[in-house]
């Protein structure tokens, strides 16, 4: 991730700190690798010591050691010294049962209703790029409240995704629940420019807060559809020294936060 940070922080650092703040103590988060895992671990080290992380590979409460963040969700380095290992289908079913507070993923392409695409660029019948596909993304987004952390770029924030891999609010309004998705849904999109939520009625994406120094116009310029703006637009608090110190301990080689 090339830097587009502010106030001496990289974009990835800003993303990670704000993502960590979205998590509360005692919660259970189903995390993807990369920024989501880093943010969940940062939350554990700062304000949420009893937060529990689940991984798609079948891992409950892994032993994350500072400086040794696991590179994937289902290998031995990730599984060692966890609280519990279980079959993939069963860890996914914990989402369906309701044990998980938040699913937490990165995103390649998102639309105004929070739908995510990781399957096709272009027409799925004749794609210009065949992407790796859903993995557990579709299940997590179908069954849990979602946090998405991603870089705020116009090519990533599109009016309509080419393919709904992981459902947000589908076509907005009540279309998600009408399809049978009765729980979960997009909760918050955390970017390097600000925090976004969704309008309670239309389910269209809405700017909720700006990072210091960012303007609404800048965010709109990096967004491929007209952005709603919350009635009271907040300004986020910049990363604190304590958060930054913890983050540096977790990622001393700045693999993820450069």
């Amino acid at each position, binding site marked *: 991730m090339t830097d587009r940070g502010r106030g001496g922080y990289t974009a990835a650092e800003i993303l990670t700190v704000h993502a960590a703040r979205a998590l509360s103590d005692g919660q259970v988060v189903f995390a993807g690798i990369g920024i989501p895992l880093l943010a969940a671990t940062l939350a554990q080290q700062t304000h949420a010591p009893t937060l529990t992380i689940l991984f798609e590979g079948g891992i409950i409460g892994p032993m994350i050691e500072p400086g040794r963040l696991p590179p994937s969700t*289902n290998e031995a380095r990730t599984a060692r010294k966890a609280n519990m290992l279980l079959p993939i289908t069963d860890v996914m079913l914990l989402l369906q049962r309701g044990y998980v507070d938040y699913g937490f993923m990165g995103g390649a392409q998102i639309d105004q209703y929070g739908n995510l695409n990781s399957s096709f660029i272009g027409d799925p019948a004749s794609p210009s790029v065949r992407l790796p596909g859903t993995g557990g993304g579709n299940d997590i987004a179908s069954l849990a409240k979602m946090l998405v952390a991603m870089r705020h770029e116009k090519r990533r924030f599109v009016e309509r995704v080419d393919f709904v891999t992981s459902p947000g609010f589908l076509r907005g309004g009540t279309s998600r629940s009408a399809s049978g998705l009765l729980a979960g849904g997009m909760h918050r999109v955390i970017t390097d420019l600000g925090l976004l939520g969704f309008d309670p009625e239309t389910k269209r994406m809405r700017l909720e807060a700006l990072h210091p120094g960012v303007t609404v116009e800048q965010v709109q310029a990096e967004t491929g559809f007209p952005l709603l703006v919350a009635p009271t637009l907040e300004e986020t608090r910049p990363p604190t020294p304590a958060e930054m110190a913890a983050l540096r301990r977790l990622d001393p080689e700045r693999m993820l936060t450069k």
Partner: protein
Amino acid sequence: MDASVPYAEVRARLAARDRGLRDKVTTLEDAIGLVRDGDHVGLSGSTLSRTPIALVWALIRARRKDLVVSRGITSNVGEWLYASGVSSHVITSWFCQGIIYGVSRVVRDFTESGRARFEEWSHMSIGLGYRAAAMGLPFLPTRSMLGSDVARQVEGRFRTMTCPYTGETLGLVPALRPDVALIHVQRADRYGNGVIDGLPFMDVDLALAADRVILSCERIVSNDQIRRAPDRTKIPFFCVEAVVEVPFGASPHECYGEYEMLFRHLDRYAKAMRDGGVEACRRWLDEMVYGPTSHTEFLERLGMAELLEAQQSGRRMIWND
């Protein structure tokens, strides 16, 4: 996903299988003889973990064709199946070399050109498909995959129903029934009782779902060892057709508690694929699959130094530290 198979046929297929407590130890080559052209083959493990590499290696050498291959998450092993012509239809939820290697040029080449098919289901749906089959059911209900384009792509197989208890809409995942499952585990006895350390992935359901199971293992243990801790047995012998002892049978992938993946080999492989695409993949197959005269020679080409290092670190992190 062939959920329309009548129950009577499912039962008849199983009734015809030899389920006795008999010695099933054989060679890689003979075991792979149980796979027929056109079969649906399910693979154990996930991504780069506990993949039945030795069995797939023998499968490619045997030049099977028209296989449908399924797995929860598919990595570079799927590239080999495409590039070797063994399969042009992979059923999976996620398909590239491995999470750190990005989009696969080989998968892109085959799928974007229409020469091969990547049939995408959600990860849990692949698991529920195996589980439905393992349970002797035509489907399992789900609350996932509804409303998405993933579901739309497999419409007719993924269905919906109205729950008679709640009136809610439920998705239905059809049974996923491999003709053959290739499964690699840490230990098994000669009868096929399989023990899995660490992450079980979808392998228990896969074993019970399939019509035939070929089990490879790091080592064969006595039935007495199995009976010492029967609560550790994960795969029952009567679903297994053949047992093959293959040390490093998942290398260059990892096997929990036995060895890590061969990072350097995988990095070199990834770079070669980025640079050379399908042609590079075919060169890799020539060098690593068709070239060696035995699996031991395949391991020699992976490299003794890296294997020993992977074994040392893989054991240490689980058992020593």
